[in-house]
């Protein structure tokens, strides 16, 4: 890739959510969520289970329509069908009998929405091989998708999403169920992809520490509300306390960040017992 980013140069905005709220069956799932994603940047969408991360993905993908607010793609409303978003869902189980090799699944990323039977083509095969190399998936290219390990399937699905040359790549909890080594590999891979291909990458996670070294921006979600900015701007006691509506502490331990419920009883409005509102494992 030739484009070298000048530090401080404004990066192209790929996606923005502006005041997005979503009501589903009488409950407010998202409240006034706003953030933007930029080319070449890796953004972490951090929050505990049930905070609204997957719903935000569904809004971006057009599977849910916001009750209010705007979702703009490159400054425009998103088209109904959008090939420029790649999506890797949260650990999908694939039947071991599924007659698809990893390379077949990657090829379906190229033209899986087209009708008819594909003819074998050299160009297609070349593109698939290139993408398998990019995610370091050559070793298991001919393995059945149902027999891949979590990390292998993750990389295959990333290749599947990337082969269509998206501007935005969404990954729902890609690090869940990975061992530490695969976790580091996937994180490193995604950071490289964001920089080299100049696409915006949004990764949801309930645990932020594995993403800290590579995250350009963070969107922190709690109870359907979100705060966004750089890690230093967002992961602070005052910002997160306001988000949770109760006092939380942010502790830095050996380069890791821990968000823990505080003891200050005065800050929480509903009178709930202060230590139970923030679930464990926030990061």
């Amino acid at each position: 890739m030739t484009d070298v980013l000048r530090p401080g140069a404004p990066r192209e905005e790929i996606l923005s959510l502006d005041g997005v709220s979503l009501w589903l069956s009488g409950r407010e799932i998202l409240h006034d969520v706003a953030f933007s994603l930029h080319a070449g940047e890796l953004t972490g969408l951090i929050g505990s289970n049930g905070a609204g991360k997957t719903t935000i993905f569904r809004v971006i993908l057009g599977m849910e329509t916001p009750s209010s607010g705007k979702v703009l793609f490159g400054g425009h409303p998103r088209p109904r069908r959008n090939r420029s978003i790649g999506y890797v869902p949260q650990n999908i189980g694939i039947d071991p009998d599924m007659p698809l090799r990893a390379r077949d699944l990657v090829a379906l990323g190229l033209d899986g929405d087209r009708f008819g039977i594909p003819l074998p083509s050299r160009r297609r095969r070349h593109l698939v091989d290139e993408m398998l190399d990019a995610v370091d998936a050559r070793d298991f290219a001919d393995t059945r998708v149902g027999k891949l390990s979590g990390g292998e399937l993750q990389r295959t699905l990333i290749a599947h999403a990337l082969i269509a040359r998206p501007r935005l790549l969404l990954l729902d909890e890609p690090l869940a169920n990975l061992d530490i080594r695969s976790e580091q590999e996937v994180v490193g891979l995604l950071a490289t992809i964001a920089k080299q291909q100049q696409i915006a990458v949004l990764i949801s996670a309930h645990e932020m520490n594995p993403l800290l070294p590579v995250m350009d921006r963070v969107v922190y979600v709690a109870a359907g509300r979100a705060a966004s900015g750089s890690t230093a701007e967002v992961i602070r006691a005052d910002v997160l306390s306001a988000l949770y509506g109760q006092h939380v502490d942010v502790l830095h331990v050996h380069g890791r960040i821990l968000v823990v419920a505080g003891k200050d009883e005065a800050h929480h409005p509903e009178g709930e017992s202060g230590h139970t509102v923030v679930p464990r494992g926030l990061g």
Partner: protein
Amino acid sequence: MTAVLNGIFEPGLFTSEPVRVAVVVGGAVALVSAVVGVFTVIRGQSFAGHSLGDLGTTGGSAAFLVGANPLWGFITFAIIGAGAMELFGSRRPRGRDMATGIVLGAGLGIAALFLYLGTTQDNTTGATITILFGSMFVLRASMIPVFAVLSVLALAIVALLYRPLLLSAVSQDVASARGVPVRTVGLLYLLAMAVAVSLSCVTIGAILSTAVLIGPAAAALRLTKRPGLAIAWAAVIGLGVTWIGILLAYDSYYWPPTGRGWPVSFFVVALVLVVYLLSDFASHRQARRAGAQAMAARKGLGGAAGGQPEGIRARGAR
């Protein structure tokens, strides 16, 4: 040598008109079912496939009652059933199974009524047997064009939707994010399945149609990991079991105890089971051999395993 051949191909086999029609129509129908069935299995819709066959019973018995060709009864009710399943069903697999079960129950209830009315009116049980267990040797040559058109229709739908079907079998969400109209694809596929099942209701019977829909496909999926090859294998197996079934049924006229011949459907279904068990055995053996090879390769590599962390760990675990 000639004696042996004569023993296998009993005299008159190749000159018999019913046998020739059975070979052509039965073969085509089995091929269509097997090809369509590959997607039934990978989409996890075996229950829906079976239910469409059972709904065929309702249609067949209704057609018998009004004196129409059973094929039209089978196909009308299978398509109505497919539509109802889609209407009541949801994206959740359990919701889909529930919808299928409800439609299936209603259909079989009506079938019970129609068969009762039909048999008490005509005082014959022949129709019930024909509808439930098929009648390959009583197919008429005049029906061949109709079977051909319907077969081509089912195959054309599957060929058209080949890639979207594969992708949505992997994940509905991934397919939908990729721009596949998942719902429409699912509905069109149900239509193809309804047509395939209706055709095999005529040849092999409403109750047994599941065997030719699911069996060859399930066996094929054990034999190959490539989608195109899986479809080819399923087609070959479907065609093979049907033709051998016809041969055995013809030969069985000379077998004890009755000298009346055994039903084709029995032979076909029995062969499907045998082929499935064989392919399952073959795939287990292959997996064991691959495992042993991987183990040997890893021993040979020694410390080099560090260079390929993920794959080795995962495959070693299996």
